[in-house]
């Protein structure tokens, strides 16, 4: 059953080939068996899942159940789940059990989806390798000594390892797309404002966006149908009808104009990655799409602009973790300052502390204009680049990341080496555009991701293109060898 896609599982459930309880038990068993090797799931909610599955089976039996009814999924541990620990990958929230749920979580609950548990992640979503998690790194199912990417590495590895057919994730600078690419699955970061941020623990509020991860574009469409909603609890959520993202999947892409930014094929790009991406583009061209070389001249500035804006916002967003209202508090604080400084030094990991310090620096008196102010202007320039490009083309494509999954610890002591991992993904967050990663090849037995960037609210078209590509290729069907000995069915 675990090799079936969500679309296939939904069909099976609706036609009673198997029950949601059976499906849930199957995936719970896989998690129990395989997760110790990957560390992708950090909280398993077996009891609640089986209860939800039984309820889903009732709804299915009654007929007219929604598409995701009875489908097991995992939530990234950044989404608050009422009564279930929500740690955000941090010691700071290791004991945090929210008495409320994220809107995304509620949406899936209403649709009858079954939540198997919560996935591991870089602490507060700050990382591109999952090495910053308080719960230890997630292992890439394709290469156990390599990173799964981050920050949604747990969700990506879990989907790749068939621990769940789909998972939620978030993307602030590439945190859906990069791990999707490194784990050989499909992931979509929607337009900023498409998915509610309520109950999604904030990293950088003007960049964060939740999105789905699954093996296929078709499944991502099903998940996004549920995940996207207008939410009046999030002032930045856009009041706009949610289309049926599954509706246009089968449209022909003949005449589609694909922009290929020359800046995305520059020096740092791994040759094997480039080859895979170029082949994918050729495949789409063969299906009738037109490739147009474009330029996004300010691309190189996206990383520096991001590493001002994201830490600046984070430095304020993470001030609430002070040991007063919830979460970690240091032992025996001797005074208020000791309570604050020790709680935060002990509760936050090194990378989180670093980003808070950078953000504080960039906002502090005397530096604001040079850093924060300047980065906001550069952000405008980056958005203008995309505006010009989208006047010419329908979608933009290139690699998701510069190279395939790297070994643990290989980025060394220099944080900047890790930051450059997101060089192709960050710009879309700065502009608020939707972006997606689709498996498009293998290099050194590790997956490569093709990035598709769409215009604002053009997710349906991106999913259509990705689906058409997946109809003609089977990269998304590849299965890591390490999981093949897993429980069969």
């Amino acid at each position: 059953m675990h090799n079936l896609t969500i679309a296939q599982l939904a069909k099976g459930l609706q036609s009673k080939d198997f029950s949601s309880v059976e499906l849930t038990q199957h995936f719970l068993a896989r998690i129990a068996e395989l997760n110790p090797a990957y560390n992708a799931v950090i909280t398993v909610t077996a009891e609640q899942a089986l209860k939800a599955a039984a309820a889903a089976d009732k709804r299915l039996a009654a007929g007219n159940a929604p598409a995701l009814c009875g489908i097991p999924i995992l939530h990234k541990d950044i989404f608050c789940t009422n009564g279930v620990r929500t740690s955000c990958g941090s010691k700071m929230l290791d004991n945090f059990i929210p008495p409320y749920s994220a809107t995304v979580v509620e949406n899936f609950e209403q649709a009858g989806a079954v939540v198997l548990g919560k996935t591991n992640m870089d602490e507060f979503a700050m990382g591109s390798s999952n090495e910053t998690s308080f719960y230890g790194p997630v292992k890439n199912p394709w290469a156990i000594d390599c990173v799964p990417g981050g920050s949604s590495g747990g969700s990506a590895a879990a989907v790749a390892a068939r621990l769940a057919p789909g998972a939620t994730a978030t993307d602030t600078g590439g945190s859906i797309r990069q791990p999707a690419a490194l784990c050989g699955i499909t992931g979509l970061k929607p337009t900023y404002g498409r998915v509610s941020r309520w109950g999604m623990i904030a990293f950088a509020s003007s960049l964060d966006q939740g999105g789905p991860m699954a093996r296929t574009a078709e499944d991502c469409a099903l998940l996004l149908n549920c995940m996207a909603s207008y939410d009046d609890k999030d002032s930045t959520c856009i009041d706009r009808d949610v289309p049926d993202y599954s509706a246009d999947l089968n449209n022909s892409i003949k005449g589609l104009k694909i922009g290929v930014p020359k800046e995305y094929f520059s020096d740092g790009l791994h040759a094997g990655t480039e080859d895979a991406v170029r082949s994918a583009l050729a495949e789409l061209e063969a299906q009738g799409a037109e490739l147009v070389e474009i330029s996004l001249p300010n691309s190189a500035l996206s990383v520096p602009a991001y590493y001002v804006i994201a830490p600046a916002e984070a430095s304020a967003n993470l001030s609430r973790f002070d040991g007063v209202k919830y979460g970690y508090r240091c032992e025996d604080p001797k005074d208020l300052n000791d309570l604050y400084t020790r709680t935060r030094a002990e509760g936050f990991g090194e990378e989180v502390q670093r980003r808070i310090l950078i953000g504080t620096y960039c906002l502090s008196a005397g530096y604001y204009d040079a850093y924060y102010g300047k980065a906001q202007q550069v952000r405008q320039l980056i958005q203008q680049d995309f505006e010009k490009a989208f006047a010419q083309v329908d979608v933009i494509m290139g690699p998701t990341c510069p190279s395939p999954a790297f070994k643990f610890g290989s980025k060394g002591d220099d944080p900047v080496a890790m930051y450059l991992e997101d060089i192709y993904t960050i710009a879309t967050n700065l502009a608020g555009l939707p972006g997606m990663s689709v498996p498009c090849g293998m290099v050194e037995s590790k997956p490569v991701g093709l990035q598709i960037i769409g215009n604002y609210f053009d997710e349906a078209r991106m999913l259509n293109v990705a689906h058409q590509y997946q109809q003609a290729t089977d990269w998304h069907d590849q299965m890591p060898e390490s999981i093949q000995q897993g429980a069969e069915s």
Partner: protein
Amino acid sequence: MSWETVIGLEVHVQLATKTKIFSGASTAFGAEPNTQACAIDLAMPGTLPVLNKQAVHYAVMFGLAIDAEIGQESAFERKNYFYPDLPKGYQTTQLEKPIVGRGNVEIQLADGRSKNIRIHHAHLEEDAGKSLHEGNFRHGVTGIDLNRAGTPLIEIVSEPDMSSAEEAIAFAKKLHSIVTSIGICDGEMSQGSMRFDVNVSVRPTGATELGTRTETKNLNSFKFMEEAIAKEVERQIDLIEDGGSVIQETRLYNGDTKVARSMRSKEEANDYRYFPCPDLLPVIVSDETIEELRRNLPELPDARQARFVEQYGLSDYDAGVLGGDAAMAAYFEIASEKSGNAKLAANWTMGELAARLNNQDLSINKSPVNAEQLGGLVARIADNSISGKMAKEVFEGMWAGEGSADEIIEARGLVQVSDSGALEQMVTDVLAANQTMVDDYINTEEAKRKKKLGGFMGKIMQASKGQANPQQVNKILAQKLNELV
């Protein structure tokens, strides 16, 4: 050397909304600790703010009341600092684009002068919670109550246009009058609904450059403000005259102990790192909304005072007292309407009622005698049903909650007999029954007779069980006795 004082005010006004500025939690005063602090107010992870429409409208109304520029596009910033009563570790406030721009407030001074105080701007922001340093909890800790966290405020920032405590108090009172008149604040100073930060500096008379200023924070009564300014001016002058210099600092004034001190803990590393709040979008107030709010803006204090002179024939002074305070004005108008005698209603509102409220430290909104009741009482005085003395007794009864004036008058049998036929009969009877006294009266030389009237009055009032209208009895008695002489 002679010195002049320069004062500027920052005034925090709690807006009278039902809910917080960014959450749907109640703002009602006096609830049990933390029972009105929802997930947003507690800065629980993943929670987000959504702006309260009423708070925006109230801020715009203030702008209209002081004839200010209204920021059609305003924005929120985060002001970063750590404090246990600030749950997010930043205050959401406005810096670059406040909702209310430059405006003007005119104040009236005791010597009859009036003066214009310029408003630099007014912005929307959220209040913090409260730190309780003493309570039922164990020693050595501070308790945090976040009920107040997120209560909408406007912070009104004046230019340093005031040059004495008197002017500062007049300005503060005028703001109080404006915000209560337009109904955007309940004006309850004792509950912290208005709090004043006072910036004070001194300079040699005639100097053009400003001296170094200090900021005394969080004064919540006009009296404390006056004391704090007087002390601070004296402190600064003494300091400079002794060869020292004023340090720019934040100070606290304790109105109970009358002690002012520096608040050094707030001084260290004062870098608030303001930046635009990414959770909130630009706030647009349309021309239509502004015009609608302008049309519906309640009467302002100046206009009301003029109307009171015109409509009720009150003196400028009385109109100033009654018209300057929104609650008192509303009270007076109801009492006046109900009684049919504006002047008498004004006297009672400003006299007996105000004295009583003041005495018991009550605001007029909390008065045990409401405006209808007072009007009912004044009506009975005006139509001579009861005497002034009886009225005081009735007022006592109403204060004690015994009911309306008419109910108390009836229950206590306090009817004043003003029927002249009945009174004449009563006087005749008393005179007949006290021939000795009458004789004595007649035999007294004319100049001293007046003193003898009291005895007859006593007898008559006794006979009428105190219900005879004394003025009328006096008249009839004098007449009858003079006939006998």
